């Protein structure tokens, strides 16, 4: 057979040395190369513009963050970030398609180009940021891991949990924090690892495990899924830092900027008191900060390559961060989570966005 020495492969010859190093991974390469191959087809932003919508990875159903209603419409705090990006890019928050993903599937889906961005209560860690070819575009929810137990057990603190069976969802940082916590406190446990959060809840309800562990926001969300929400309680301990935020693939900085600043626009809008209800009146404001946000003066949409009213569209169609929070997880929702860490920096929390100027 003939393999051209200076034919189609010439451009990749500098990569050939890797062949030896990775000869063993030949089979996997075959398995994933088709998927990864599609990611190469143009920069993410160009691809998104060409197809006319944002393909956004969300959870398979987590109340308050990303959940589909009975008509199949997605809603939630994470979903609103996807919508904000669509509003900034296309001027229409509806131009999003959602891919429900399990915790295990999410990074592969993003790496392979199946989705353009991931907004799925994903914790920002060093490994994920540096080793997976991904970039975290910000933090839309500051969370921490906690424990939920049945009230019948009479447990008041996580320190009393030695020997307990713990239901947990596969492929999460929770799994590692749990092991760390029990090891550090010299306690034993039995991890029961399920694939989806639905099965995790079922296992907990049936009594397969004594404890369900997850990010605290999720615990409140999962608790209302129980047949008897009042029979379960969330323990006071928070055992980890879980900054959750939207994620994009490395390699397209323009796209990364759009996602990051869509989230920043929502935060800045709340800080400036601009909401979906008053945004049209605010156009008449004389405050230069507000005028810059709404694209009336300053750099406008130029740096991001967007229309000047990009931030106006976000606030008008999706709302500011505070509105999204209250509507999805706060007082306007069944979850009733207080702002806590997620209040703005000038209001006792740590949500802080760089200025638009």
């Amino acid at each position, binding site marked *: *057979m*003939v*393999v051209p020495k200076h034919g*189609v*492969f010439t451009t*990749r010859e500098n*990569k050939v040395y*890797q*062949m030896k*190093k*990775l000869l*063993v*991974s*030949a*089979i*996997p*390469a*075959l*398995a*994933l*190369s*088709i998927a*990864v*191959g599609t*990611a*190469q087809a143009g920069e993410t932003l160009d691809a998104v513009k060409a197809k006319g919508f944002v393909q956004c990875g969300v959870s398979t159903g987590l109340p308050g963050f990303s959940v589909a209603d009975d008509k199949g419409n997605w809603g939630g705090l994470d979903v609103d970030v996807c919508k904000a990006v669509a509003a900034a890019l296309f001027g229409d928050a509806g131009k999003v398609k959602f891919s429900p993903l399990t915790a295990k599937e999410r*990074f*592969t889906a993003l*790496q392979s180009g199946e989705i353009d961005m991931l907004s799925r209560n994903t914790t920002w860690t060093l*490994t*994920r940021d540096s*080793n*997976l*070819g991904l970039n975290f575009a910000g933090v839309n929810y500051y969370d921490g891991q906690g424990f939920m137990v049945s009230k019948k057990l009479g447990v008041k603190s996580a320190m009393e949990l030695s*020997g*307990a069976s713990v239901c947990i969802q*596969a*492929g999460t940082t929770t*799994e*590692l924090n*749990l*092991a*760390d916590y*029990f*090891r550090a406190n010299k306690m034993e446990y*039995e*991890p*029961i*690892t*399920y*694939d989806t959060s639905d*099965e995790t809840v*079922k*296992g907990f309800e*049936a*009594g*397969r495990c*004594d404890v369900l562990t997850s990010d605290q926001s999720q615990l409140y969300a999962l608790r209302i899924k129980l047949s008897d929400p009042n029979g379960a309680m969330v323990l006071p301990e928070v055992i980890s830092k879980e900054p959750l935020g939207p994620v994009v693939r*490395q*390699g397209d900085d323009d796209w990364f900027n759009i996602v990051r600043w869509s989230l920043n626009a929502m935060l800045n809008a709340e800080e400036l008191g601009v909401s979906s209800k008053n945004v049209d009146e605010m156009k008449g404001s004389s405050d230069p900060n507000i005028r810059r946000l709404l694209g009336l003066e300053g750099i406008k949409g130029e740096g991001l390559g967007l229309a000047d009213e990009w931030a106006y569209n976000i606030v008008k169609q999706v709302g500011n961060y505070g509105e999204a929070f209250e509507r999805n997880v706060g007082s306007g929702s069944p979850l009733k989570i207080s702002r806590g860490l997620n209040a703005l920096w000038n209001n006792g929390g740590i949500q802080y966005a760089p200025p638009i100027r």
Partner: protein
Amino acid sequence: MSDQPSDAMTPGKPAPWNDPKIRAIVFQALLVGAVVMFGFYLINNTLYNMEQRGISTGFSFLEKESGFGVTQSLIEYDETHSYGRTFFVGLLNTVLVSVLGIFFATLLGFVMGVARLSKNWLVARVATAYIEIFRNIPLLLQIFFWYFAVGINFPRPRESLALGEVFFLNNRGLFMPRPVTEDGFGLVVAALIIAIVAVFFMVRWAHRRQDATGQPFHTVWASLGLLVGLPLVAFLAAGNPLTWEYPELRGFNFKGGLSVLPELFALTLALTVYTGTFIAETVRAGIQSVSHGQTEAARALGLRESKLLQLIIIPQAMRVIIPPLTSQYLNLTKNSSLAAAIGYPDLVAVFAGTTLNQTGQAVEIIAMTMAVYLSLSLTISLFMNWYNAKMALRER
């Protein structure tokens, strides 16, 4: 006619591009070349893309500390062991459930296959009902059923069902005493090995004797006597070198003893019941493939019913049964990867699940996982092919 028209009539050597042999070789070479180039392109493209996206590659992650726990492990494992160790933990759990499943499915399948041909109306209908129901429900649903509807619906640990304060059944599993060997137990093991070797030689001797003299020998009873008797004598001689560790309720759950997780129970049961139906049908077909004339001839020779089955029907039926049986064993092994759905820590759940997600090394991990299932399947095939060749009709 004395002319020699041979030059004109017999075809001369055709031109190379018309020679069918050369053509065949050229086309095959082209095909092989195209396949190799395609493969080369895929690998290159993957490496290039992963490099471009800053995804790290290689197998060095296997040595890093895993940092997560696993419910069930046949080898020593905790959070401080490496990712490489999680591979073996998952692999052994997969092998465990596959071996258990194959064993019980074969048992159930043979019983139900024979029962379906029973002359007893009720027995035959029960077998038919079993086969038709469980063959036609998707396996995943059956796994969910055995797990969520049965496996974890037993009482909570504090209200366990107890049998003589020794066996306990609750929604955390089945707990039973664990034998703890003491000094001198090696003697019992040695006795068992001697008994097995003795039985092997005795069977050979009995065959030869029967061939030579026609005298049958009660090998079954003699073997049983040897297998039970010898170790028992050694056990008593060594002064009872075995104690039991009993499970007891401590804190949230039972500690000590042996336990069978509900996940293992549900998965084994579902795989057994599902694959058993296919094996039953295979067995039925095998038995029915032996012509009735064989049965009549055996009866004419005066063979008893049991001998008829043992010497005439089963050896011939096995030739039909073994090849499809192999496929069922392969299916069962591969189906065991549905374990992830109910939290049984098999290879897919532990290694291609948690480890993959913690490290992000999808390409390497999926490759290793696929290689495992391929090797497991090829091993089963190899063994069954050997067995098939052994059972095949020897034409003289």
